[in-house]
């Protein structure tokens, strides 16, 4: 009997000098957001400086793993635009407005969600899917609690 190996076909988030703390946190099933020490704005996605005021005085704030949000907007795609999505159609891509930090919206798929149940304002919760041995991807799931 041969060992079934299903390689992850979808694009894996590329870490770079600016976003690595976000993805490192994700790999540990945690959310980290970049925040400006000067103007207090969050930058999501993170960058080399604060996208609002240009300050270099930015740091990452750890928000933990209990992340809830509401659906701010979404699209439902019936065609794969990238490899790996062909077997999971339709794909829901949604912008979740964080309950903890409402000025931040994070885009993920919503997993385990029927299209008919999808609506703006719907409560969602962040989960992390292990996609390779050392990488994990933040995703949304309906928050039924």
């Amino acid at each position, binding site marked *: 009997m041969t060992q079934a190996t299903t390689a992850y076909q*979808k*694009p*894996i*988030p*590329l*870490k*770079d000098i*600016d*976003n690595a703390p976000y*993805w490192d946190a994700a790999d540990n099933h945690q959310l980290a957001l970049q925040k400006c020490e000067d103007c207090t704005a969050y*930058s*999501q*996605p993170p*960058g080399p400086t604060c*996208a*609002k005021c240009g300050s270099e005085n930015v740091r990452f704030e750890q928000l933990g793993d209990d992340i809830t949000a509401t659906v*701010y*907007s*979404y*699209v*439902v*795609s*019936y*065609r*794969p*635009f*990238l*490899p*790996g*999505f062909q077997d999971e159609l339709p*794909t829901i*891509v949604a*912008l979740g407005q964080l309950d903890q930090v409402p000025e931040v*919206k994070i*885009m*993920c*798929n919503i997993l385990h969600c029927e299209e008919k149940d999808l609506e*703006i304002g719907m409560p969602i919760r962040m989960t992390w899917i292990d996609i390779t041995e050392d990488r994990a*991807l933040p995703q949304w799931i309906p928050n039924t609690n």
Partner: protein
Amino acid sequence: MGTIKDRYAIVGVGESERSRKSGTTPLHLALDAARAAIKDAGLKATDIDGFMNYNEGDSCTSHQLATYLGVRPKYVKDIQGGGASTEMLIADAVALIEAGQLNTVLIYRSLNGSSGTRVGRGYDPDMLQGALAGGSFVIPYGSASPSQWFGMYATRHMHETGITKEHLGHVCLSFYEHAQRNPKAFLHGKPLTMETYLATPDISSPFNIHDSCLELDEGNAIIVTSAEKAKDCTSKPVYIMGMSARQCHPHVHYWNDIDQVASDYVAKELYENAGVTPDDIDVASIYDCFSWVVMRQLEAYGFAKRGEVGDFVAEGNLKIGGKLPTNTAGGMLSEGYTHGMNNAIEIVRQLRHDYEGTDRQVEDCKIGICTGWAGPDIAGAMILRN
């Protein structure tokens, strides 16, 4: 820019054949478009001393185009740019002429948009993650097409303003109807009914194939010169009344804030520069990569109030004979997609009354608006008159 009012003009427009498969290179398409525009203006190629184009790595260079027109120009410029670039490069051309650097500038967009690179079909995953800082925050989620990025805006905006799928259909039907009057429109002979539209499944919500522009192989060219030099041309000059451009988002990743678009900011300065109001506009070219993008701009440019845009389009106001005849050659939804430039060409032809005596002419039109949308974050627009 206010001081340039009526002192510069578009004096020539031209296009290549449009097709699904050109069988040739963007250089050949650009040469065809440039020759047509030069002929339209009644100029010689050597009268052009500046060549500019925008591209996404899918075109020929201005150097190549000039070379094979037999011209050794003073100035060539190629920019990586989106669908607001026609207006922005026209502003660059005006500035260079105003500065005494150039006399007459040809601006073109040429691409094998169907048989070559296709924007709407998604990008190579690593290319986009690497090329766009922040690509890694959308690409891993399967979001790689402008329909998905702009759709995120559309879903929220439709939710807030009551715009329905049927309203989007009215945008499509209006432009398709214009395409039936334009023998060169790619969807000439293929009219669209609301029944068919509503029965067509979405590719990515809220857009079906009719809501999405027609990616084709095509080259377009526009020639800009001073009002003074325009007198030497054989064409009727179409004067630039005002222009404006803007990049607006508080983050390079424009989905960070989907409640605003750059067009919201362009509109005010544009009307101030031109010295007109939305009521003065007789004919419009509104950037239409997707149907909803037209709706959002109608709101931004003050043609209908927020919340009333759906009714505005349902009343037939975008059709020839309506309050704001828009994309009268069929637009990018049904004529063809040249990244905005074909819509600019059409507004010039309308204002010159090139279609006089046919059902394509917007009667007595004097003032027109042409808007560009490089995305929610970058817009450029101009107001023209005859």
